[in-house]
């Protein structure tokens, strides 16, 4: 199908974008005034988080399609997208804690709303996989995973709001995020690295999906042959 043909193009596109992002981040974008070099982590940490949101969103969208059209293929696509989202979510947590160590000297801080949100989402989507592995393969598993993926995407805004509210009474240290005031070139570097990470996620998603489809086809082939 057309996608398979254009896959190498997308893969090379991703590599190209990643290279461009590296150049932009380390050579073009100026060093941040007060944060210094450690601000460079920001160019990966935040795009990875945004890419994770995109993966969870895709997973929920595929889940919705599954519930509407009952087509089995959406189950695999939703599962793979959620799996990608979890990988990028874990990376967000790791790079986030490295950034916290670089900026405030602690490996974990409850005052960074986004970091805490990813901790909650990470717990949620690990439960998604636990649910999936405790169900027999078949339409029931596909539907339950789809419904749970929909709850996940609804949870993102709600728990972000909750965490913001929680900051008021847990320890109301007001933490000023400087994300917004970026110079022009910094912002360009941010956008390029975000595009690069989105492309990387897409390529990984397609590869993993192909692997799962080959598995399914092989299973049918084995059945057809052994049934002879």
């Amino acid at each position, binding site marked *: 199908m057309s996608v398979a043909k254009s896959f190498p193009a997308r893969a090379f596109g991703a590599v190209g974008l990643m290279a461009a992002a590296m150049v932009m981040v380390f050579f073009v974008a100026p060093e941040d005034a007060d944060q210094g070099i450690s601000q460079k982590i920001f160019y990966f940490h935040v795009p990875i988080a945004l890419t994770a949101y995109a993966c969870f969103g895709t997973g929920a969208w595929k889940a919705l399609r599954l519930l509407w059209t009952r087509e089995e293929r959406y189950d695999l696509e939703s599962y793979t997208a959620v799996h990608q989202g979890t990988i990028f979510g874990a990376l967000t947590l790791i790079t986030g804690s490295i950034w916290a160590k670089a900026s405030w000297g602690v490996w974990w801080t409850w005052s960074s709303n986004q970091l805490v949100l990813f901790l909650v989402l990470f717990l949620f989507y690990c439960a998604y996989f636990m649910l999936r592995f405790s169900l027999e393969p078949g339409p029931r598993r596909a539907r339950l995973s789809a419904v749970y993926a929909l709850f996940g995407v*609804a949870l993102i805004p709600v728990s972000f709001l909750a965490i913001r509210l929680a900051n008021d009474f847990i320890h109301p240290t007001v933490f000023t995020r400087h994300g917004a005031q970026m110079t022009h070139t910094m912002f360009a570097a941010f956008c390029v690295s975000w595009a690069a990470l989105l492309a990387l996620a897409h390529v990984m998603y397609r590869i993993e999906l192909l692997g799962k489809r080959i598995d399914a086809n092989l299973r049918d082939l084995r059945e057809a042959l052994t049934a002879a």
Partner: protein
Amino acid sequence: MSTYAADVAALARKDLRLELRARDTLPAMLLFVLATLVVFHFALPAGSGDDPAYGLLWVALVFTALLGLGRAWVPERENAALDGLVLAPCDRSAIWLGKALATLAFLAAAEVVALPAFALFFAPLRSTALAGVVLADIGICTVGSLVSAMAASSRTRELILPLLFLPLAIPLIVGGVGSSVSPHGGKYLLFLALYDGVFSILSWASFEYVVTE
């Protein structure tokens, strides 16, 4: 609309009748919440003030609800009664709403004992806190009934229910604790109402896909 409400009422009544007859879920929830509060007393270091106590109240409420939710679909599993309900021409979401209301009744009954006991053991509960409890209960029972139906059709029922439910309960705990502790508690009540709205509609719409193929 009236037949939908009548279906929901009949299903909820069935659960209350089953509970009055079996008398296993409610007593267990009552004793559990009291025992948890006493354990928390010993868990809290002396003179640790009221705020941690309110936090622990919400932990006790959520886990008591989990106890009730774990039992929610047990009657439907015996003799595959759930298939009987799914085969009936009524709207499948009525099955969920009936179960959510019954679970809400059990949770409320447990809280009628737990909240005065908390006020006695730890600290008084102001009106916003009580409103927070009511709103959070709605969220717990609506989302919990759906999630426990999911857990019921998996192999590891009691094991997976807390894993599925707790991440979804985190916003409820934040709203609940906020409504009991924070000076401007109204904000948290609004947030709890938002949560109830969003997740009740989502549960109502997706329950059909949890019980059918």
